[in-house]
C-alpha cells in the first residue's frame, strides 16, 4: 500500500508542474516522508488501539482508484438546506468553485486554498500546516502530503457573521479515497458559525480523510458543527486542530449518525490566558458502525476553562470508542477542566471502550472527569409504563432525554431540527 502511495505521490508531484519549489510543497514533502516512515497505525499503536483502521483500509482500498465525479443526480443535493446559510459544496474533496459566490460579503471571505496562496500569501504561510502536526498522526501527514486545494475562510476583525456557513461534503464510492482540507481564520473579535456536513452517495466503499485547521483570534468566538451522516460503507477520518488566542471562545459539536468507521481527532490548543473551550459530542450508531472520538485539550496558559460532554447510544453491533485527554502544563495554573462521557448500550453485541485521561503538571487546578455506561434505568421505565406509556415509547422518551443534554446546546435551529428528526426516526 505504501508503494502505491509513493507512486501516487510521484504522479501528484509531476502534476504540480512548477509549483514544487514553494513552501507549501516543502511541507508536502516533509509530510509524505513522515507518513512513509511511520505508515498507517500499527495494531499495537496506543492511539489506535481500539480502532484497527489500517487493517480495514487495506482490505477495502488499493489506493490506486481515483474518485469519479459525483453523479449529477446526487451532486449538489445536500442533506439539508437552509436558504439563510452560506453554502459551499465540496465533492470528493474538490471544491466546487461555482458555489463560491459570496463576494458580496466583505466581512467573510471564502475561497480555495490555492486562491488564498495568491491573495493572502502571508496568512497562509503563517498558519497552514502549523497546527496539524504531521509527525504525530499518520492521517494528518497523508492529508498534508496530498493537499492541493481546500476551503479557506477568513472572518474580518470585529465582525459578527449572522448567517452560518454550510460546507457540504459529498463523496461518491468507487472504492476510492478523497482528501479535503480547511484553513479557517477567525480574526480578533470576530464571530462565526461553520457547519460541516459529511454525506456519501452511491453504494460502494469510500474513504475520506479530512483536516481542518482553525485559528481563533483574541476575543473571537467560533462555533464549529460537524455532522457525519455517511452510508454504511464509508470510512472517515477527521482531524481538527483549533488554536485559541487570549479571551477567545470556541464551541465544537461533533454529531455522528452513520458510517462504517469514523475516527475523529479533535485537538484544542489554548495558547493564551482566559480561553474557553466547549466540546459537545453525540453519537447514535447502529448496525456495524464504529465511532471513535479522540479529543485532546492542551492547557498551555493560566485561567483557561474547558468543558467536554460526549454522549452515545450504541445499538446492534455498533462499537464506540472515547478517549478524552486533558493536558495541563506547568504554567497553566488556575485551570478549570471538566469532562464527561456517558453511554447507553442497547444490545449485548454493542460495545464501548472509554479512556478519559488527565495529565496534570500544575497544582492550582480543578480538573475532573466522569464517565458512565449502562442501560436505561428500570425504575424510570417502570414509572412511565405504570402510567400507561408503551414500552417502546417509554424507551424512546428516555433516550431522547439522554441525548437532549447535547442537542439543546445546538444553537442553529434548522440543524437542531434536522438532527432531532433523524434521531427520532432512529429511536421511535
Amino acid at each position, binding site marked *: 500500500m505504501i508503494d502505491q502511495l509513493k507512486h501516487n505521490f510521484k504522479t501528484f508531484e509531476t502534476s504540480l508542474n512548477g509549483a514544487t519549489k514553494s513552501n507549501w510543497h516543502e511541507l508536502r514533502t516533509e509530510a509524505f516522508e513522515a507518513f512513509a516512515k511511520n505508515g498507517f497505525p500499527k495494531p499495537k499503536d*496506543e492511539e489506535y488501539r481500539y480502532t484497527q483502521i489500517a487493517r480495514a483500509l487495506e482490505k477495502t482500498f488499493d489506493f490506486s482508484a481515483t474518485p469519479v465525479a459525483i453523479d449529477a443526480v446526487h451532486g449538489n443535493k445536500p442533506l439539508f438546506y437552509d436558504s439563510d446559510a452560506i453554502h459551499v459544496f465540496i465533492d470528493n474533496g474538490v471544491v466546487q468553485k461555482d458555489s463560491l459566490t459570496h463576494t458580496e460579503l466583505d466581512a467573510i471571505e471564502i475561497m480555495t486554498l490555492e486562491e488564498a496562496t495568491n491573495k493572502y500569501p502571508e496568512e497562509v504561510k503563517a498558519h497552514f500546516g502549523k497546527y496539524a502536526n504531521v509527525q504525530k498522526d499518520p492521517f494528518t501527514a497523508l492529508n498534508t502530503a496530498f493537499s492541493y486545494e481546500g476551503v479557506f475562510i477568513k472572518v474580518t476583525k470585529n465582525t459578527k457573521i449572522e448567517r452560518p456557513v454550510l460546507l457540504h461534503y459529498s463523496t461518491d464510492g468507487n472504492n476510492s479515497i478523497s482528501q479535503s482540507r480547511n484553513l479557517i481564520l477567525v480574526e480578533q473579535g470576530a464571530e462565526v458559525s461553520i457547519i460541516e456536513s459529511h454525506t456519501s452517495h452511491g453504494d460502494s466503499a469510500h474513504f475520506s480523510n479530512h483536516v481542518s485547521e482553525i485559528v481563533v483570534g483574541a476575543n473571537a468566538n467560533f462555533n464549529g458543527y460537524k455532522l457525519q451522516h455517511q452510508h454504511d460503507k464509508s470510512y472517515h477520518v477527521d482531524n481538527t486542530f483549533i488554536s485559541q488566542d487570549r479571551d477567545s471562545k470556541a464551541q465544537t459539536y461533533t454529531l455522528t449518525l452513520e458510517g462504517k468507521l469514523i475516527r475523529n481527532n479533535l485537538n484544542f490548543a489554548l495558547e493564551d490566558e482566559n480561553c474557553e473551550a466547549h466540546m459537545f459530542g453525540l453519537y447514535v450508531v447502529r448496525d456495524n458502525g464504529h465511532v471513535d472520538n479522540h479529543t485532546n485539550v492542551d492547557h498551555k496558559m493560566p485561567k483557561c476553562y474547558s468543558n467536554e460532554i460526549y454522549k452515545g447510544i450504541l445499538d446492534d453491533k455498533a462499537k464506540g470508542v472515547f478517549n478524552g485527554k486533558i493536558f495541563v502544563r*506547568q504554567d497553566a*495554573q488556575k485551570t478549570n477542566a471538566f469532562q464527561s462521557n456517558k*453511554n447507553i*448500550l*442497547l*444490545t*449485548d453485541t*454493542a*460495545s*464501548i*471502550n*472509554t*479512556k*478519559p*485521561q*488527565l*495529565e*496534570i*503538571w*500544575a*497544582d*492550582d*487546578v*480543578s*480538573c*475532573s*472527569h*466522569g*464517565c*458512565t*455506561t*449502562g*442501560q436505561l434505568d428500570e425504575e424510570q421505565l417502570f414509572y412511565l409504563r405504570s402510567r400507561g406509556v408503551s414500552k417502546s415509547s417509554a424507551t424512546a422518551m428516555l433516550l431522547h432525554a439522554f441525548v437532549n443534554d447535547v442537542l439543546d446546546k445546538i444553537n442553529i435551529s434548522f440543524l437542531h431540527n434536522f438532527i432531532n428528526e433523524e434521531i427520532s426516526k432512529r429511536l421511535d
Partner: protein
Amino acid sequence: MSSDNQILEDFTSSEYKYGFETLIENDSAPKGINEDIVRFISAKKEEPEWMLEWRLKAYRHWITLEEPEWANVHHPKIDFQDIIYYSAPKKKPELASLDEVDPDLLETFKKLGISLEEQKRLSGVAVDAVIDSVSVKTTFTKTLGKLGIIFCSFSEAVREHPELIKKYLGSVVPMTDNYYAALNSAVFSDGSFCYIPKGVRCPMELSTYFRINASGTGQFERTLIVAEDESYVSYLEGCTAPSRDENQLHAAVVEIYAEAKAEVKYSTVQNWYPGDKNGVGGVYNFVTKRGLCKGDYSKISWTQVETGSAITWKYPSCILKGDYSVGEFYSVAVTNNYQQADTGTKMIHLGKNTKSTIISKGISAGKSQNSYRGLVKIHKRAGNARNFSQCDSLLMGDTCGAHTFPYIEIDNSTAKVEHEATTSKIGEDQIFYCNQRGIDTENAIALIVNGYAKEVLNKLPMEFAVEAQKLLALTLEGSVG
C-alpha cells in the same frame, strides 16, 4: 505563600528513618543471570526436579521477552547482569524459640518496631519475617496447624506440600504473564505460602515483613494464597528497606486463588527506600499482584498504602470469574522528591452479577510523578456487572504531576460502570477555615490529608491502620504533624 514553601521544604528534607543495615554474613550467588544461576538458586533451596524445570522454563521464556516501556515512569535501563539474584542469611538449624535467633536480627526487628515476642504474645499475629529472601522464623504455625491452615515459607511449602504448589503455582499469574513475572518465576528466592482449608475462618491476621538487606541484592518474593470454599483470611504485608545509593530491583509476584464463597483480604503498607531528596538511589518496585475469584460468591479485596520506592509499578488486579464474585481495590499512594508511581488496578469481569469497587487516592509533592492506571473490563457474558471507580489526586507544589489513565472496556449492555476522577490542591479556603479556628497551617494540612485518605485507611486492619497513619505522618513530616 512563605509558610507553604517552608512546609514543602521541611517535607522534602525529612530523611528516611529506617536507614540502617544489619551485617549478616551472606551466602550470595555471583552477579548476573543465566541458567546456571537458576540451577544454583534451585539447588541452594534443595528443590525437587519439577521446581527446577519450572524455573528453567520461565527463564527460557524470559530471555525471549523485551523490557516493557509503556509505563509513565523514567529510569536508566536496568542491567540485569549486574544484580545478585540470591543472598541468604547463613543456614542455621531450625529454631525452636526466639532466644536462638541471631541477636543482630532481633535488633533489626526492634528498630523496625516489630518485636517478635511482643507480637507473638500481645497482638496474636503470626509473623513470618523474611530477611534477605529466606524465612528465618515462622511463628504460630502450631496454632494455625490445628485448624489445618498452612502458613509457611515458600521453600518449605515446596518441600512439604508439593501437590498444592504444583496445582496452584502460576495458576493466577502464569510464568509467561509479563517480563517481571517471568523473571520472578525463574529466580524467586522465597516468599510465603498460605492455604486455608474449606470452611475455615482464619482466627488471626497473617502477616509477613519483607526487608531488603545486603547491598546489591534484588529481592524476588513470591506469595501464594489459596482459600478453599467458604474460608476467610486477612493477610498483611509490610516493608521497609535500608537506605543506600544503588538502585535495587524488587520484582515480586503475589497470587491469590479464591474458591466459592471464600474471602481474602490483602493489605499492604509499602515503604521501600524512596531515594534521597535528589532522587539518588531508591528501590524499583515492579510487582505483579493478581487475585482470581474462581468460585461463585468469592471476594478479594486489595488495600494498599504506598509511600516508598523510587519507582512503583504495580497493579493489584482481580479476575472475577465466579458469578456474584466481588473485587475491591483501595489505594493511597504518596510520592515525594523524585519518586515515580504508576499504579492502579485491573478488574476483569467474566462472571454474572460481579461487582467491583476502585478507590484510589494519590498525593504528589516535590518533583514526583503519580499516575493512576486502571482497567475495567466487562466481558460479553458478564451480565449485570457493576463497577464504581473513583480516583482522586492531590497536588502539593507546582513541580509535581498527577495523571490518570483509566481504560474502560464494556461489551455487555446490562453493565453499569461509573468512573470519576478529580485533581485538585488543598484549598486555601479549607486552610483558612482551620486557621480561623486556631489550627495552624501544618496541622490543618495534616487534618485535610488524613481526611482525604480516610476512606482507604479505614479499610486496613486495626494493627495496620495505626502503622499506616504513622507512615503517612512520617512521609509528610515537617509539613504534617
